[in-house]
């Protein structure tokens, strides 16, 4: 192994979370290897598939702090209002922030986020990006970590970071136990084109089978109005729903949307994700840290998991930078302990995991019942409510990573 190949961080997984981490770390002077098996060209290919992420204000601050906000701004679709209805019956409840409270978040096509991240990564000398690379061996030693690629190349670093998503092989190999709650439902995700503008409203329409969410996206280049659909269906019905012809699928969607956005004119390719919750008991090991979905995931509904992952990124980079100021190297066990304490399994996550949101709130009245129906994704999307809840549940405030502050 060439000595020059040893970097500060060995980031396994170069998706949205892994690449944001590499860029945020580079801002603090940390060099990294980023290893990903995917082909970036495929991940950024044209197309409107509804794979989108809600970027919270805190996450947006992180993008600003690593210099991505300026280029991304034109691709953002602000969420002005979140509307909640029960099967499109009258009595919609709106969540609209006061003007001084800013937006409820910004919707982005994941493709746009990747384009911005990948471009920034290519221009960052501290990042060595190894795409379309298969890892055949991982090693965590006393002084360094390494990954061997299928072509025989060995990449080394001081700290290994698993940013591979929910099925993280690095986490599995490290034997970090994972707790899973399977809701026996799947989220079907696709992009919709519709007749009327969405007016920056995110819709959460409750059906007995689960929520049907419409997330506002920017109009297409030709002026078509677009939204991302996250449709929760029973596991047993998922395969059938995915196999429907476009026309039959459109009809099903139309039935559930009513006349909300006028006629639905087109659907993009469909994808589906199992709905569930997972969290590892520990998010660190010897010279190992988990970030994003490798460590914990909530409903993939509405892409809220990314905000959680970006909070991991902010926390980990802050811990490493604080450590470097004290002469502690990135793999230092005390730094990982601080990250673990900051972002690891805590009461709040356990509460979520056990479906305890409603039980925990336990507040009578219409607002609380709206919150209950709104569910996890909704609370995640409400920064104020979320902040209140987080602070209440964790008994701490001011734990927002520096990079996620304005």
């Amino acid at each position, binding site marked *: 192994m060439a000595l020059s190949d040893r970097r500060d961080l060995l980031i396994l997984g170069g998706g949205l979370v892994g690449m944001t981490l590499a860029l945020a770390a580079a801002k603090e002077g940390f060099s990294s290897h980023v290893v990903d098996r995917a082909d970036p060209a495929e991940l950024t290919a044209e197309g409107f598939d509804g794979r989108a992420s809600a970027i919270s204000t805190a996450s947006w601050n992180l993008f600003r702090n690593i210099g991505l906000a300026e280029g991304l701004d034109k691709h953002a679709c602000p969420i002005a209002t979140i509307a909640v209805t029960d099967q499109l019956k009258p009595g919609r409840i709106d969540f609209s922030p006061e003007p001084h409270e800013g937006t409820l978040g910004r919707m982005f096509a994941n493709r746009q986020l990747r384009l911005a991240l990948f471009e920034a990564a290519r221009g960052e000398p501290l990042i060595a990006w190894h795409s379309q690379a298969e890892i055949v061996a991982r090693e965590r030693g*006393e002084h360094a970590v390494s990954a061997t690629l299928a072509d025989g190349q060995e990449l080394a670093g001081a700290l290994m970071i698993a940013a591979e998503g929910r099925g993280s092989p690095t986490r599995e190999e490290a034997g970090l136990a994972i707790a899973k709650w399977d809701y026996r439902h799947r989220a079907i995700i696709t992009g919709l084109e519709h007749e009327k503008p969405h007016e920056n409203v995110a819709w959460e329409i409750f059906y007995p089978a689960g929520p049907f969410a419409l997330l506002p996206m920017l109009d297409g280049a030709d002026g078509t109005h677009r939204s991302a659909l996250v449709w929760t269906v029973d596991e047993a019905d998922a395969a059938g729903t995915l196999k429907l012809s476009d026309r039959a699928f459109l009809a099903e969607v139309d039935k559930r949307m009513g006349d909300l956005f006028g006629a639905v004119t087109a659907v993009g390719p469909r994808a589906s994700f199992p709905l569930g919750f997972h969290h590892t008991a520990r998010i660190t090991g010897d010279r190992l840290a988990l970030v994003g979905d490798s460590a914990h995931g909530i409903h993939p509904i509405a892409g809220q998991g990314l905000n959680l992952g970006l909070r991991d990124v902010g926390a980990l980079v802050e811990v490493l930078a604080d*450590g470097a100021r004290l002469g502690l190297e990135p793999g230092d066990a005390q730094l990982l*302990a601080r990250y673990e304490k900051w972002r690891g399994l805590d009461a709040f996550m356990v509460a979520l995991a056990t479906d305890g949101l409603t039980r925990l709130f336990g507040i009578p009245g219409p607002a609380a019942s709206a919150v209950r129906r709104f569910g996890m994704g909704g609370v995640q999307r409400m920064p104020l409510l979320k902040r209140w809840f987080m602070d209440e549940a964790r008994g701490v405030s001011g734990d927002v990573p520096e990079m996620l502050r304005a």
Partner: protein
Amino acid sequence: MSDATTSPRSNSTPPSTGGATIRPEEAEHFGRLAREWWDPQGSSAMLHRLNPVRLGFIREAVDEHWGGDAESAKPLAGKTALDVGCGAGLLCEPLARLGAAVTGVDAAPENVAAATAHADGARLDIRYLPGELAELDLGRFDLVTCLEVIEHVADKAVLLRSLAERLVPGGLAILSTPNRTPQSKLLLVEGAEAVGMIPKGTHHWSDFVTPEELCELLREAGLEPLAMKGIGFSPMKGLHLSDDLSLNYILSAKPA
């Protein structure tokens, strides 16, 4: 200083023989622990946890003393540092990363061997020497650190004088040690050692020195105390710097 007059310290500590300020049985005790030093969950777990806290104090003292930038990566670049009682290099390695040319001295050869091996693995160029400070011809340093050592030393005045002699004019010394209070007796000696957080036999409470006594000893040795902080413990914050000196404290000093 009222504590000093009632202290049993001066009666119970055996006299130092010549320049040997570390008691032989103490050096042997840490030598046995040398292999475990670098295990963050091992017998030195408390020292590992203490490390970021005391490094936080050192960083601030260094920036303050030499007018450095609090964000710079190498605040000790171009400076020499000596760590007395370096153990297996827990402090020397961060100091080297901060840019200093570091020398570590420890009475136990096993510690020095462990420290050297670890620095090699970490690719850090640190000079480690076994032996007694007074018997080594080391020259002078910009920064001299002596953390969690003085409480193990019989003749504290001798140690402080040899620390002062190793400092260049305009240099900076950092010391830390447990206070001699009912709290430290309960927590450090009886509590932490009883539950195994600190190895049994690490501390003899009567050898502890109070901040007032230490400041007086420093002045006698020709050093002027600059800043002092307590190292406290709470279940929420863990070990942290505080204004409460009752458990453990860390201070900076310069040649008077």
